[in-house]
């Protein structure tokens, strides 16, 4: 059973959240350039604008999923893959297969 959740619209966001939404929408259009920075950003946040699932997650996911279909080094993009799996589950649109049993070494902080 898949859980489908409607994202918050941009009109419900603060200026800081709108700036993050704009930033990652812009940068995701240039992926794979900037994909590593997105992974680093997601290390400490759940969604694109922080703790809220918003329309920005859907926009950025639409720009990102094709770059995640054949990732050989899962560890290097672990946070993006975690976020992408969450977004595709929330929207009910499975675009990428995530191997939940993949052996991933502990992250060195």
């Amino acid at each position, binding site marked *: 059973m898949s859980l489908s959740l409607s994202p918050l619209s*941009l009109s419900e966001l603060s*200026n*800081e959240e*709108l*700036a*993050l*939404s*704009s*930033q*990652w*929408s*812009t*940068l995701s*259009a*240039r992926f794979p350039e900037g994909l590593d*920075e997105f992974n680093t950003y997601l290390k400490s946040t759940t969604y694109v604008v922080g703790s809220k699932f918003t329309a920005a997650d859907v926009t950025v996911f639409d720009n990102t999923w094709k770059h995640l279909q054949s990732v050989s080094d899962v560890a290097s993009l672990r946070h993006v893959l975690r976020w992408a799996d969450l977004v595709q589950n929330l929207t009910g649109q499975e675009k990428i297969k995530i191997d939940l049993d993949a052996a991933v070494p502990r992250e060195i902080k």
Partner: protein
Amino acid sequence: MPLELFYAKGNNAKAFSSNLKLNLAVAAYAAQLKISVDADGSKPFLLHENKTNFTLIEPNAVVQYLAASTRPDAFSDTEAVKTERLTVYPGLSSSKFDAGALSSASFASVDVTSPEQIILFSSLYPLAKNSSAEFALKNWFEQFASAVQTAIEATSAVTKLERPKATN
């Protein structure tokens, strides 16, 4: 000062565009802020807010965020912003200027406090400043450039543009 701004590093067209956006945004919306040079290279961001640790690394978002205090349209994804993102900005890597790509954007008049005009002009400037080609927004571009000479000079002082290496 809780909000800090830092110039982008590098001497290429992308860095010039980023730094021009910062200079124009500060002049338009936040004259009390100073932009610092990240001398030791330890700041991987353009904007940082100490108290909340809020950071931005993308210059269009910085322009929009600074504009948001006075402009309700700050975050509008207009034709001009889309044109900059999808067709002008990619040309900064190769220094290729596709004049035809500008046909979808238009402005009624020059407005140096408009976020969409700041964003488009700043990415267009390194590509079109020496271009003799005609393009849809040339009149607006030249008027905008005349109005923001101080910011262009300030940007040139911190970002020396290097000619891209020729490829065989």
